[in-house]
């Protein structure tokens, strides 16, 4: 056993490290972007550099403008990217989830029109799946698309759409046949986010921030040529996207508080029972947090190791998010309680307490995003352990008999 790169991996790492350190130098020491336009411009410039240097779409087939490399190359590249000042994030949804769906299920014309522009970064993408009444039960989508000559007219509402306000295009799942059972009446399209009738509004979260949008579609016209997959195959296309999402929403968010935070905090607190760090309940919580968070990290190392050996990672990867989110919530609540009143009073900006309060608020959302704790446990039980699926009484019923549309 070892944690070292193979010779080929080491060689690739050295090559990309050299390129990134040169290419990302201009971003070093930059202040936070002053405006949304600044943010987008910075992200676009980095994506363009990668595109020009053949570092974009590393794992995509060459036919779609990718580099045709293995997953380890992409992992090594993003590890090296993360060590640098390179501005990343804006393309995670589009290039990570949307475009692989487009080139898996889209027509030749659609691929030629959209994939290169997405890859060079000039067009930004979002994913329009969830609705207020279709979250865990994603197939109960109500946003309608009605055929009108060579076009479709889309009406409805999407929610939790990351980057919708910055996006040029999106992939949207709509109901095209309300008389079919719910999984069967869906169709996916590409939608122009600047088209008349599209309105993206920031959605203010419980935590106070607005990291997502709700998006309204009021008679938005989409050409049939922009359909992704066959009419009625929207669920299948959506699963391709979600598989890519589950790969992405996994580990503990970088720089989020963890066992070290709790340890540092406990060192500075004196309690009636003595220094907090010497209290057994505190030490037990530090240990639990370590076991969960580092256990997930080590589980991801197992997956990386499998990829590095050219094998398929095991099902154990599926535990990541369900562990990380609840661990963050439990640890943050414990740390805030350990701080008594100070943990409740709003922490000073950038202080450790403020970060813990932020983590506590954010963790409630993290337990829902990309599959709730409950859905993820269903998935582990059904797909990994082979237990029978939940009864789904509406599975074969025409959708419009359940919901008047």
């Amino acid at each position, binding site marked *: *056993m070892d944690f070292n790169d193979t010779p080929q991996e080491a060689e690739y790492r050295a090559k990309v490290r050299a390129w990134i350190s040169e290419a990302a130098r201009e971003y070093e020491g930059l202040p936070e972007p002053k405006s949304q336009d600044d943010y987008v411009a910075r992200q676009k410039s980095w994506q363009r550099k990668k595109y020009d240097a053949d570092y974009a779409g590393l794992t995509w087939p060459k036919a779609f403008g990718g580099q045709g490399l293995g997953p380890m190359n992409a992992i090594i590249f993003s590890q090296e990217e993360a060590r640098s000042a390179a501005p990343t994030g804006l393309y995670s949804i589009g290039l990570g989830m949307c475009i692989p769906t487009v080139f898996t299920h889209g027509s030749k014309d659609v691929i030629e029109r959209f994939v290169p522009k997405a890859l060079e970064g000039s067009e930004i993408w979002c994913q329009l799946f969830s609705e207020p009444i279709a979250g865990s039960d994603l197939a109960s989508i109500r946003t309608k698309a009605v055929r009108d000559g060579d076009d479709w007219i889309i009406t409805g509402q999407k929610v939790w759409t990351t980057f919708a306000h910055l996006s040029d295009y999106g992939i949207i799942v709509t109901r095209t046949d309300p008389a079919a059972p719910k999984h069967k009446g869906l169709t996916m399209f590409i939608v122009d986010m600047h088209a008349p009738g599209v309105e993206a509004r920031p959605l203010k979260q419980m935590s106070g921030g607005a990291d997502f949008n709700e998006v309204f579609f009021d008679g938005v016209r989409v050409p049939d040529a922009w359909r992704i997959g066959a009419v009625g195959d929207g669920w299948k296309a959506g699963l391709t996207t979600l598989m890519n999402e589950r790969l992405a929403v996994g580990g503990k968010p970088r720089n989020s508080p963890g066992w070290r935070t709790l340890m540092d905090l406990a060192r500075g607190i004196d309690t009636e029972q003595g220094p907090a760090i010497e209290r057994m309940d505190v*030490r037990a919580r530090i240990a639990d947090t370590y076991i969960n968070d580092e*256990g997930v990290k*080590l*589980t991801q190392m197992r997956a990386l*190791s499998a990829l590095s050996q050219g094998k398929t990672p095991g099902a154990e990867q599926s535990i990541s998010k369900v562990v990380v989110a609840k661990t963050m919530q439990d640890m943050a609540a414990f740390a805030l309680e350990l701080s008594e009143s100070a943990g409740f009073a709003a922490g000073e900006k950038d202080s450790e307490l403020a970060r813990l309060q932020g983590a506590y608020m954010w963790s409630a959302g993290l337990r829902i995003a990309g599959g709730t704790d409950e859905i993820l446990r269903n998935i582990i*039980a059904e797909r990994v352990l082979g237990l029978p699926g939940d009864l789904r009484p509406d599975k074969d019923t025409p959708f419009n008999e359940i919901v008047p549309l």
Partner: protein
Amino acid sequence: MNFDFSDDARALSESARRMLTEHAGPDAARRIMDSDAAYDEPLWRQVVDLGLTAARVPEAHGGVGLSPEESCVLAEEFGRSIAPVPFLSTLLATEALLLAGSAAQQAKHLPGIADGSTIACYAWGEGANSPTAIPATRAEGGRLTGTKSPVADALAASLAVVTAAGEDGPALWLVDLKDARVTPAATLDLVRKHGTITLDGTSAEPLGTSADYQRFIDRAAVILAFEAIGTAGAAMEMAVGYAKDRVAFGQRIGRYQGVKHKCADMYIKLELARAHALYGAWAFAADADELRHAAAAARAASLDAVRFAAEENVQLHGGIGFTWESNCQFYYRRARQLSAALGSRAFWADRLVRALEQRNRAAA
């Protein structure tokens, strides 16, 4: 990166699993539970014939000279099968001899372990003591006095590795059990037979230093983590199998989220434990400084996994699971044995935090 067991280790674990699936398992456990035998002798001969006791013994002493990885994978298979044989006890003694034994001690004891003629046990327990507390058992002029109980497989063993008070804290000693009094000790685990070893000025040889002792319990913790993972996996499989089968309210109970989420939680705890244990196996094999915290996390996480799986396995079975006839009791009782086998979950959680504090100080 290669964060996984070698193909050789996997092959060995598969052959052990095949043999144990055929000859061990709950039926063998029940036979031993109902008898006065200290262990399953025919099964033990198969274990020896397959070369499993020789796996870790160096070739110079009649063994195969395999790596710590093999100890880990075998521990998991014996944990899975709850085989009523003194394999884990003998393996821990083997690891102690490999780590801290002098050339003479190794030459004297390892060949017998390899060929199966020597069964050994590890005797550390004394009342409510933790593994790092100073034991009441003391050495004076090469003689030990004290009582060790309950000691797994003491009734089967001819050789004991004993924890006793040394000059700088607890340390290991070798005792020939024909010089000691060994009597049966009843425990909650009815399958793995335990004994009380009474030492009354019994002659003993020191086995390494107090520092060796600390490293030994870390290595032992990794091996026992794999044993617990094996047992947890078996309990989980039993629960999942029942949930796929049992019908209530007109459907298989595995459809209910109250049931399937318990099974998912068994899997989550098991995989967290496995990740830490694998890290422990790496640190053990590489003799890395990370062993201290890796072993502690592996041991604590594995006890979480086995306890949860054993308890919820009974629960998912309902009333039948609580009967004497059900095999649920084997895992439920074994979970107690595993947690008592080398310091409690709380002890290892604290040792983990100590190790992390030390690393933080060293990094600062």
